[in-house]
């Protein structure tokens, strides 16, 4: 969701982990546009990149030669990589000046929380289980199984775009500061892990750091599981059924593995309310993914019935807002904050997620470099466009190729949407959500963490 490739520190990676040139151009551009860092920041960045590189070297050892020589990466015209292209596009679409708004907000935010934001701690990535998966994944290179995309996301996006959720949780934790009163029962058993959970590092409880990590794991597991393909719909262009089915196995297992770890991690927080609320966020995500049909490459179909912006909001909340909002609230619970503060944190997470989602949905409409570039038919501007011009205005541009495949005249469609009021309305909505998010954080006292939250919120409304 949050695409933020290429912080400067990432360029210090060993050569085999560096982006291929096609992808790396963006990185270079950003680097130059970022402000110079102080010496301490530099040190921090260095140690962080060493840590990250370490992490990746070890666990993705098996990937590396394959991904570097992967024919798919260089093959831009490949329709199977639509989503991948979209993602890459998203990055290149940010003109360097504007991109740095979000980038800067993010890198400042990382400094505030103290640690590098690599939550996927070594013990998970280095576990036998995941390196096993990595080894098996080599067999799939050359097919179009979505799990490769997810795995590539790890290697190339670094831990960035994947881990903004955790960052938000940490920032909210820090902004809220130390909690008031502990619950009585927590005090009673205050030994061992519990007392660990109460230690604060750079103003964040250890339990809150675990929670941030868990949030990331849940999200990644969701990405993996959403990438399971329906074998019935596999076409010969995707790869053989055997390969795809094997890819499914890997996707299911690694997703399950992350979910299971998230479960045990949650249990160890020793707070059943937190377990309940975070579980309900997972349930929301699953529910959300049943609202819209997708094909094997993750392209969503137009829903059968008319969709209003309300449906869109509901769906987006279930799919991405719920996890962030509920994790933020859970972080407050862990620190023992009052209910009204919990509610504010929840609202911040919810509106921030929605605003960011709108921002991402709007990107295809602010770029003119490739008029044929596909975009989601269920994105906010499209839904607003249909509300305005009627469903037929969109369905006219779609030719059904078969039951599960369609062709869309994206060029024409984009032009029409741009002519109507939908883009403006979507921007308004984005602004609206970010205002609500800002209003929610006013409850916190002024602090670095608070202004980092505010900066991130403002950054998503700049187009």
């Amino acid at each position, binding site marked *: 969701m949050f695409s933020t490739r290429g912080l400067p520190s990432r360029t210090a990676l060993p050569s085999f982990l560096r982006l291929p040139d096609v992808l790396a151009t963006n990185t270079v551009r950003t680097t130059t546009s970022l402000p110079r860092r102080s010496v301490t920041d530099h040190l921090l960045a260095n140690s962080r990149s060493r840590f990250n590189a370490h992490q990746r070297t070890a666990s993705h050892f098996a990937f590396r030669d394959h991904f570097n020589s992967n024919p798919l990466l260089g093959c831009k015209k490949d329709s199977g990589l639509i989503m991948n292209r979209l993602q890459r596009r998203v990055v290149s679409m940010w003109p360097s000046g504007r991109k740095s708004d979000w980038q800067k907000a993010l890198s400042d935010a990382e400094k505030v929380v103290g640690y590098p934001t690599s939550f996927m701690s070594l013990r998970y990535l280095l576990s036998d289980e995941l390196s096993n998966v990595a080894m*098996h994944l080599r067999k799939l290179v050359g097919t179009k199984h979505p799990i490769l995309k997810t795995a590539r996301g790890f290697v190339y996006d670094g831990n960035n775009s994947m881990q903004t959720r955790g960052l938000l949780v940490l920032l909210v934790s820090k902004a809220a500061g130390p909690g008031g009163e502990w619950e009585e029962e927590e005090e009673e058993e205050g030994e061992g892990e519990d007392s660990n959970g109460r230690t604060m590092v750079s103003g964040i409880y250890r339990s809150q750091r675990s929670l941030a990590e868990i949030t990331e794991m849940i999200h990644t597991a969701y990405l993996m599981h959403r990438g*399971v*393909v329906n074998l019935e719909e596999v076409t010969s262009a995707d790869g053989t059924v055997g390969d795809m089915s094997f890819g499914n196995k890997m996707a299911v297992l690694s997703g*399950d593995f992350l979910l299971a770890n998230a479960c045990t991690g949650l249990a160890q927080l020793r707070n059943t309310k937190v377990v*309940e609320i975070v579980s309900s966020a997972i349930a929301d995500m699953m529910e959300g993914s049943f609202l819209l049909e997708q094909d094997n490459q993750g392209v969503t179909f137009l829903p059968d019935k008319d969709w209003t912006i309300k449906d869109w909001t509901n769906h987006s909340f279930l799919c991405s807002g719920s996890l962030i909002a509920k994790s933020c609230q859970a972080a407050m619970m862990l620190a023992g904050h009052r209910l009204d503060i919990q509610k504010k944190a929840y609202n911040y997470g919810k509106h921030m997620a929605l605003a960011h989602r709108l921002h991402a949905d709007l990107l295809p409409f602010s770029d003119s470099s490739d008029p044929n570039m596909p975009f989601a038919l269920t994105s906010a501007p499209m839904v607003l466009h249909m509300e305005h011009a009627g469903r037929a205005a969109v369905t006219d541009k779609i030719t059904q190729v078969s039951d599960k495949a369609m062709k869309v005249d994206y060029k024409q469609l984009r032009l029409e949407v741009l002519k109507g009021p939908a883009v403006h309305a979507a921007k308004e909505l984005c602004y609206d959500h970010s205002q609500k998010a800002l209003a929610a954080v006013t409850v916190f006292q002024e602090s670095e963490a608070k202004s980092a939250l505010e900066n991130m919120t403002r950054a998503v409304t700049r187009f």
Partner: protein
Amino acid sequence: MSHYYFDGQGKAFRPMVVLLMSRACNFHHGAAENSLALPSQRRISMIAEMIHTASLVHDDVIDEADTRRGKACVSYLHGQRKAILTGDYILTVSSMALAAIGNKDVVILLSQVIEDLVRGEFMQLGTKEDEDERFAHYLKKTFKKTASLLAHSCRAVAVLSGSSKDVQEVAYQYGKNLGIAFQLVDDMLDFMSTEELMGKPTAADLKLGLATAPVLFAAEKYPELNAMIMRRFSEPGDVELAREAVTKTDSLQQARILAEQYCREAVRQIQQLAPSPEREALVTLTQKVLNRKK
């Protein structure tokens, strides 16, 4: 979709064990006049079945099975992606229910089960080179995939009954031993039973490249099986040869003896509780597990 398997057609073996164990523990703990299962214990039994069902849904995708409990499985009907998300949904609903009980230790116990299930599935992917190690690997995998759920949920109800650490351990050991025996019998039935009875295809393990106890025993007599185990019965004719070898040797008998040993251990453990009708039922259950046909 998530209601699909909860139609009362399953054996409901796990909830039954858990409920009986709750009552046995309550009785042992001194609630002689009212040993009925507590609402929280009932909930554990439901959660146990939900976790089991969620794992079935995922297993069916991994194993590419098309029938389960005598009907088409979810992944076959609705496509794999939805099946997986449904499995996740069931799992998270169960963990919400678990959290609602409000006992931290119980939450930790049952989340251990989920982790074990996944680790068991990963263990199933690999085969150990060494023959001695292979059997240990098999037993460990069996514990994680089947017995862990029973063992931990039995311990959870013991915790909820307010029993002492000793009683909790008894409940855990009973569940563990019964679970392993259950799976051993399951693996035997894969060779003996017919498709209609089981509600799932037979000789399925071999086709998936898995060497279960009967095959491992047979390999002691027919060393050529070892090569097949290593290549996971991938060459044509391997499955048939292995089946034949199993029927020619007394490996099924050996597997049965092993299962009996586990059952005896389960009985020995449960005898430590105060005598009650439920305790007797749990003892009888071990015999039922041994003699089951489906």
